[in-house]
């Protein structure tokens, strides 16, 4: 699709982003051993997000996708690396700059049943961002902007919904409400953390179309987090595949899905469901679970599960490099 997004002047560029958490060890083991082990949730990420681009972060659960999204939004404090937002290093943001950043970047959560305060009406949910940022004191203007955001999110006749509570809405309506709560601040960038995975299949298409339309109309960029590669293919311009806190492959959506480089991507692509009966024979089924990010395997972190693993893989960490034009991968054999 569109590759011009990434050329110059990206909206966000991430350099060597790291998020480590101190793993909590038991009382006894903390007596025996002095070393605190670290969970390396995000372990050195480099990527750029263009203006008006939809970049998918794909990967299994535990690969650090959500942590990456939250670290970029500074909902989590990164332990290393830099994030540049519109060319500014976010490590230099002071309180007031961070407050302004909160209006420019928003997040949509996975579960619209959990991400809305059950004791807030539709109106106060959407008006809250305006109030906490002191954007408007005038009541009719506030109502106007709330109604506008609800319409933008595809909720028609918004004024009838003002006094409703989240539990009175359907799942799709709730997610639209959550989107309206983000849109009311007119952000440039939205982290969408599995925004449709809790919704019925029939409702997903509407929400996805809404998000793409918002990109086209308002130029909003998305970091779209999903575990579903078929969804990533459908919606995104580029896909980054994460495994255990690192990007193993990054390229345009078509390249990654049609000509995957990394064995991990190949395995994920081979199990994308197709709408007809197929047998699982000939598919690459990954064995086991994602290893514990406290004890990341030596060498290539994917080698214990890789169908193409060689002795070298457990010794040497592969370099992440541009294999084909704008198509990056990290494997010794690509």
């Amino acid at each position, binding site marked *: 699709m569109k590759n011009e997004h990434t050329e110059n002047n990206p909206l966000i560029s991430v350099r060597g982003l790291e998020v480590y958490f101190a793993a909590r060890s038991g009382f006894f083991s903390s007596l025996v051993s002095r070393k605190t082990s670290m969970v390396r949730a995000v372990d050195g990420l480099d990527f750029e997000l263009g203006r008006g681009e939809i970049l998918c972060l794909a990967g299994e659960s535990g690969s650090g996708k959500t942590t990456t999204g939250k670290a970029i939004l500074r*909902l989590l404090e990164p332990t290393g690396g830099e994030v540049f937002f519109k060319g500014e290093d976010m490590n230099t943001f002071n309180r007031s700059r961070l407050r302004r950043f*909160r209006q420019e970047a928003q997040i949509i959560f996975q579960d619209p049943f*959990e991400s*809305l*305060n059950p*004791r807030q009406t539709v*109106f106060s949910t959407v008006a*809250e961002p305006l109030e906490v940022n002191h954007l408007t004191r005038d009541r009719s203007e506030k109502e106007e902007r709330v109604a506008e955001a609800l319409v933008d999110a595809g909720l028609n006749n918004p004024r009838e919904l003002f*006094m409703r509570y989240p539990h009175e809405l359907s799942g799709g309506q709730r997610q639209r409400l959550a989107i309206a709560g983000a849109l009311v*601040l007119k952000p440039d960038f939205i982290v969408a953390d599995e925004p449709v995975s809790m919704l019925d299949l029939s409702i997903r298409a509407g929400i996805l179309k809404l998000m793409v339309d918002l990109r086209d109309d308002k130029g909003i960029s998305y970091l779209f987090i999903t575990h579903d590669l078929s969804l990533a293919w459908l919606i995104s311009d580029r896909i980054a595949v994460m495994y255990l806190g690192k990007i193993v492959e990054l390229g345009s959506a078509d390249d990654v899905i049609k000509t995957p480089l990394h064995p991990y991507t190949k395995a994920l692509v081979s199990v994308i469901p197709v709408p007809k009966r197929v047998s699982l024979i000939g598919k690459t089924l990954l064995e086991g679970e994602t290893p514990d990010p406290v004890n990341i395997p030596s060498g290539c972190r994917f080698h214990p599960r890789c169908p193409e693993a060689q002795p070298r893989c457990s010794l040497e960490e592969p370099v992440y490099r541009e294999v084909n034009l704008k198509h990056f991968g990290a494997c010794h054999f690509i």
Partner: protein
Amino acid sequence: MNSALAKRDNFALLKKNMTSFWSIYRQNSMGLIGLVILLVFALMALFGPYLVEITVMAVDGVTQVIHPPTSGYWLGTDDLGKDILAGVIIGSRVSLLVGLAATAISMIIGTVIGIVSGFYGRAVDAVLMRITDVFLVIPWLPLMLVMAALLGPSLGNIIFVIGITSWAGTARIIRSQTLSVKERPYVERARAIGSGDTHIMFYHILPNVFPLIFANTVLVAAVAILSETTLSFLGMGDPTQVTWGMMLHFAFSMGAVSYGAWWWLLPPGICVVLVVLSFTFIGYALDEVLNPKLRRRDQ
């Protein structure tokens, strides 16, 4: 939230919640009994002092002291010949007032400390919880007695002393609920839209720990009323006020036991027990209503 719209919206929610709350609550017989007892005492405290006055029983000009119940003086008289029934009715006002005011102080301190401690965690939590632990482990009766003795006997001091010594349990409960509520995604969303800490604590955490505060208030009120009685009985109360505790204090010190004057000791004692019992019943019922896991299937 200061628009009229938001107010209307809060009122609608309140009404809706109260309706559904009542439909569950009224099926709980224990809770209903507690509520009825409490209502009787509340009416007594509100209107009683306007309806009765403490008179001295006299026959042919002779004051009838420590007189057993008769017609006209249904609960007899005390060592000064005063009507005990009127004393019990008038005493209910101050007893309940002290209990409720002390509860309010205790709940405010407990809620603020609980929410702040749970929300900020780390050093703030450690410091506040150690202070809470101190108040939890110090035997509260001696502490109250020492404080009441130092501050002197007045109604305000009694309220203050009870309030300041009874918040620790509430703080613990509110803290644990705050720890759970602050991890919900809507709190993270609130942060993402740029809300400050105070806004999050007030608009997102407080409303969601409120049911717990409500249920806990009732149990603290029972303890506070009992504490008032205890302090007054032990002579730390305000001697110019008629309360159940003061009545018990005078009855005991003037030898009601050795006279066998049961009508003098029992009525204020039974009133205290009934009020405390009603709060406890309501507390258990609220616990059952607000905690669906405890609700019985057949209800």
